[in-house]
């Protein structure tokens, strides 16, 4: 194996981001936000921190980003961030093949549940010192945690997230988090792991500010033309680990979007159709260009973390003042993935109405147990209640065997054209 092949994910990722930064400087894409420069810088900084921690043998935590990501960070763990890494890898097939060789149901499952563990086994990501396995998101994500606990021999702490969102549920999760703190402090005493409430409060405050900024962005998405679209919309829908640099980026992003709104600048020229994209997307291609070709802009990305910032009714489900630990618990309970169908579909319909969405692209990812069984309900409700069409787009995140770039592009273009015909534009 030569030197280039030996480079781990983060080393390669830093190079990739630096190239992106250069490209952004030399020929910026006018459709994309300039604030992305800060995002790339933030990611480079985070990647370098991980590499440093890896080299110095500092303890890593992983899993349950929404469940306890903030808490573990406040305790002194370095977040390994493996799911994010799986989204950004340049060699996805290597990891899918590795997981398949382990006998895992790669072909049938969501790629994101398969790749992080394989990336660790291949030496491209650090093995976490403690993994949090929980059910805040979907069954496969939880199973991936159980699998790693027993097959991968990764030290794992289980946290159970209940089905309902209420004050009792917050108490239940908070109680488990307190037990986790005791356990982790005992287990990693010699590595300096200690619960630091001040640090947690500081991170939670940053997180609140990030969410508030995202709420402001949400309001601005109502503008026609929509100030952002495609990739930038997906970035808002994702999870961001709270830090001063992250807040700086999010606030700059919000300001830039405000500027665009003031100047009437849209993400794409001559926006004709406003689209909500759900669940996830193919990462091996640009799915937005086939749409923008026909004036269709993806204005909103609907996924689990929407529950932490989009202002739909019932999002703030707690009825009392929360302690810092309870706030972490509430975040874990806010994830929209994999709970009742009502909890997934109601906000989706509400947001479509609120943002005057013209069409939904429902990404039917093979293996997404959390969403697949709702496809018909979404389609029927969108049509009956909003009079808008839904494209059921089949595919995976990295694996092209179900649908490749050509098939997906054709479907997207056809859908955009049909939407234009329905609107009487084409």
């Amino acid at each position, binding site marked *: 194996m030569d030197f280039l092949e030996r480079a781990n994910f983060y080393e390669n990722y830093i190079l990739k981001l630096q190239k992106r930064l250069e490209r952004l400087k030399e020929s910026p894409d006018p459709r994309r936000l300039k604030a992305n420069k800060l995002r790339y810088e933030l990611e480079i900084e985070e990647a370098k921190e991980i590499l440093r921690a890896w080299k110095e043998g500092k303890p890593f935590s992983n899993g349950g980003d929404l469940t306890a990501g903030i808490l573990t960070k406040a305790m002194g763990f370095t977040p390994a961030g493996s799911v994010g890494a799986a989204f950004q890898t340049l060699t996805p097939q290597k990891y899918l093949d590795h997981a398949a060789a382990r006998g895992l149901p790669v072909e049938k499952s969501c790629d994101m549940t398969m790749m992080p563990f394989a990336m660790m086994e291949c030496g491209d990501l650090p093995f976490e010192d403690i993994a949090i396995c929980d059910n805040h998101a979907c069954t*496969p994500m939880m199973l991936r945690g*159980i699998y790693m606990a027993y097959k991968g021999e990764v030290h794992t702490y289980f946290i159970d997230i209940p089905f309902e969102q209420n004050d009792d549920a917050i108490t239940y999760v908070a109680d488990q988090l307190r*037990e986790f703190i005791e356990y982790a402090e005992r287990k990693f005493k010699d590595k300096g792991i200690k619960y630091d409430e001040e640090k947690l409060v500081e991170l939670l405050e940053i997180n609140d500010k990030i969410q508030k900024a995202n709420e402001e962005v949400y309001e601005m998405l109502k503008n026609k033309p929509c100030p952002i679209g495609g990739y930038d919309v997906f970035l808002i829908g994702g999870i961001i680990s709270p830090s001063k640099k992250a807040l700086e980026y999010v606030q700059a992003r919000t300001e830039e979007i405000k500027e665009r709104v003031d100047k009437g600048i849209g993400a794409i020229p001559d926006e004709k159709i406003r689209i909500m994209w759900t669940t996830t997307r193919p990462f091996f291609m640009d799915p937005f260009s086939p749409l923008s070709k026909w004036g269709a802009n993806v204005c909103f990305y609907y996924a689990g973390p929407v529950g932490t910032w989009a202002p739909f009714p019932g999002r703030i489900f707690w009825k009392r003042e929360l302690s810092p630990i309870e706030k972490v618990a509430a975040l874990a309970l806010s994830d929209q993935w994999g709970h009742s169908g009502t909890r997934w579909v109601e906000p989706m319909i509400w947001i479509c109405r609120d943002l005057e969405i013209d069409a939904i692209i429902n990404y039917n990812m093979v293996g997404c147990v959390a969403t697949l069984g709702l496809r018909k309900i979404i389609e029927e409700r969108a049509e009956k209640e909003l009079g808008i069409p839904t494209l059921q787009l089949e595919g995976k995140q990295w694996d092209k065997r179900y649908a490749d770039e050509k098939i997906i592009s054709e479907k997207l273009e056809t859908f955009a054209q049909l939407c234009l015909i329905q609107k009487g534009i084409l």
Partner: protein
Amino acid sequence: MEKKLINFIEASIKGDKYKWAKYWKQKGGKVFGIISSYIPEEIIWAGGVFPFRLRGMWKENIELARIYRPENSCDFCTHILESFLRGELDFLDGLIVGDIDQDVIRLVDVILYLKKLNFCHIVHVPFVFTSDIHVQYYANELRKLAEKIEENTRSEIKEENIFRSIELYDKLRNLLSSIYEMRKSDQPPLSGEEFLKLMLTVNAMLKNEAIVELEKILPYLYKRKANLKAIYPRVMVLSEDLDNPAYIELIENEGCVVVMEDMEMGIRYVDTFPFNEAKDPFYLLAKRYLQKHGSARMGTWNKQMENILNWVKEFRIDGVIGLLFSWCYPQQYRAPFLQKKLEEKEIPCMFFDVSYCFSNVAQLKTRIGAFITSLKEKRR
């Protein structure tokens, strides 16, 4: 007696599997369908409601359910939805499920969306049991379940009724456990296929009536020797919601006997959970149910493996056959772990993807046949 036994075993296969439930309704009772062995039937029965464990229709044609459930989703749930959509389950007054898997929740979503039932309740089943916090929460979930049943039936569920119901179910499980004991013998009284049919009948019946029938049959079973193609090799089947005896028949027709099965319609129903003396019936049930041998969705794979290895020893198992539903994620994720652990102990095992309805028979027969042949070779 043989005729009586066969009639009992075949009762829910050859006749109307819903006849007991429908009879209960005729008498003015209510029937709730249930999914998951983590839902304590004891509470439902204490509320005067007949808890009926749902099975889907064993037919390949599932065109109505397919509209709502894509091919890459759990086959068991899809077949249950088909039963709902064809009106087969119209007699149900409600549905109670555990959130054991999101596919089950999605089934409930569709049933509610199509207004097939007015009463559906989802019980949160903690996927771990590492702290008393989990037991307490589950106990509260069971208390809420009781309240929901009370609202629906407009009658109170008294604690003494729950304790009486627990006694009834313990008696039933003890009787079924004694059949498992008999299956440890060189020539078991029932084939694996017969045992699964018996379980289906017991599950479809009112439990007090099932106890009466089992008490009549048991003395005969102690003497009976099943008419088997072969008494060796002895096989254990691992699955989840598989309940079609045709699969077990196919395995045994290859010249072996199935003496143990780790699945919902098997030991997971019968397992007599550790007794505890909690005074609160909900806490008692919560602790017992969380301690029982788990499904693939639970975070207790190591404990599950320990149980499987104990059964291999106790039942003198020669080989393990895993029958996994193609799109059942918990089974599919757990299989490599089980395979590795079994291989480490040099226990022959093979895992096969199957459908809920009996299909792909020829290929399955060839592959299972080859595995059974290898077990026979090993014995020689």
